[in-house]
């Protein structure tokens, strides 16, 4: 959602949500935050996000402030992985699917230094196409795409350390 919603958008959304079956709803777009609840459990403060009842109906996919503010100086890339709801509600056509690291380690896009990359952005892959290697304590593990589509971008550089679940690349599965 590039632009901020208008006031009418908010009213429409509330009307729409009221007709829905959701017990509670939380919508945040930039500075605009809307939270609704049909039961008496109510909403969570930022501190509690990720805990009780903190499954937001819609979220923009960034880290919540509670998380982002607390992990210290080392920046992390953890864009919403392990949150099934977010990928479920992400418009696939807009952001595309991601290929996530199945293990912690060092990601290589090439079979060996100086060699050509396994795949390049724009290239079509099948589910079993190797897109890179993750090295963990000297062990090399080929990483396959896991789904068919066109690789649209790599989200990590060659020889980057990656954590488990970290998105490695985006893939357009509709293409």
């Amino acid at each position, binding site marked *: 959602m590039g632009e901020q919603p208008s006031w009418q958008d908010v009213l429409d959304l509330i009307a729409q949500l009221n007709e829905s079956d959701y017990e509670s709803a939380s919508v945040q777009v930039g500075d605009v935050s809307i939270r609704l609840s049909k039961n008496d459990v109510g909403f969570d403060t930022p501190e509690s996000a990720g*805990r009780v009842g903190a499954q937001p109906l819609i979220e923009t996919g960034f880290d919540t402030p509670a998380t982002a503010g607390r992990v*210290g100086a080392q920046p992390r890339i953890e864009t919403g992985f392990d949150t099934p709801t977010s990928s479920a509600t992400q418009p696939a056509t807009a952001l595309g699917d991601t290929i996530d690291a199945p293990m*912690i*380690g060092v990601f290589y896009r090439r079979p060996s230094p100086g060699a050509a990359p396994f795949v390049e952005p724009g290239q079509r892959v099948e589910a079993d196409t190797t897109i890179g290697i993750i090295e963990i*304590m000297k062990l090399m593990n080929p990483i396959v795409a896991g789904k068919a589509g066109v690789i649209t971008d790599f989200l990590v550089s060659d020889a980057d350390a990656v954590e*488990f679940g970290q998105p490695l690349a985006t893939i357009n599965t509709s293409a």
Partner: protein
Amino acid sequence: MSDVPVILVANRGEIAMRIIAAARRIGASPVLAASVADKDSPAARAADRVIVIGASPANQSYLKPEQVAQAAVMAGAAAVHPGYGFLSEQPALCELLEEEGIAWVGPRPETLRAVGDKGSARQVAIDAGVPVGAGVEIDDPTNVVALGEQIGYPLLIKAIHGGGGRGIRLVTNPEELVELAPQAAAEAVAAFGNGALYLERYYGRARHVEVQVFGDGEGNAWIFGDRDCSVQRRHQKLIEECPAPGLSEKRRQLLHDSSRALVKVLRYRGAGTVEFLVDTESEDVIFLEVNARIQVEHPVTEEAFGVDLVAAQLLLALGRDPQLPDVGPVPPAAVIEMRINAEDPNADFQPNSGDITRLVWPKGPGIRIDTQIEEGYRFPPFYDSLMAKLIVRAHNRDAAVAAATAAVRNVTIDGLKTTLPMHAYVLAHPDFIAGGIPTSWFGPVWEARKESLT
């Protein structure tokens, strides 16, 4: 690289919080190696950085040496603290780290191997002059009376190739032994393909008493008193205390001297525990095993003696002075720890997980809470059921029991079933109040309570 050493915390839950606190105390930077399930946990928020090492199940994350070692490399760790459980007593992670030049907060890998196997641990104990349980192999199952006399009754017949409690028979007199030994041999052949038997003295009313040691790695030991951990259900400790109540000076000295001898023989490095069985029906004291790690119940010792064992572990691993005092055999306080587990004591201690909707801890002097949980925390189903440790210190044991009783009454944990009712019951029981109950005490007492309620 900054001059602030990074400590990788390779664990979760309350012990992760504890290690993070110790790292902060010594001015180090704690980094947490977390599973996906724990990546936003309170411990994750308390750390300077979180590295996601694998999926939620422990066998895909916390139990993977390579993944933890990789995280240690990524973190630029000076040392890795494994906590307890998981990889804490496995030489594998220790050795991977050694190759990377990263310190392991624990004993050397050869120590882990020497004490990790029951047989080799027993031999180490014998070498150190530490009393071990009487045991003898049976050559001829039809000729066992002399062997039985040698061991003493009651005794256990064990199939050497058995295990997990199978192939064990309790024998209370020579006539039973003569009758049962040939049967046991035949059954062992049938069950394990080998009829070899072993006789071992059985202690039905023994206490679990353990000694906290800290070795400098050169053979010298600090001994931080003893703990009684006899309130157990199926070998799971429920309540621990320091010092062990009602030990004679002679027994205490035997326990402490034996532990010191083991540290010397092993050139033990860092914090460890020597576990003993202390009989209540004889004068026997029997070595059980060495736990080559920090233990769940270490806080009772810390509070009793006024030391920080986890900080000392980190300092030693970093090559610094662990800053530990020499102390006497008996601490100047009495401390009790209650393990609050997410288990329903009224339903066979069945574990449960879910949302902690309300949480209130007691406050006041002498109360310490070691925990990761907080209001709103979703207690995960993937790991063990320990939610929190409630530790209470007072000037003597009676006051500590009274303080523990008040503290348990003033805990509120809503949303999950916990073992708190069990603690209230035990703390009010005259046998516990008297002190010195055996490990066989809790099971039947709790069963009897259940029956009295129905």
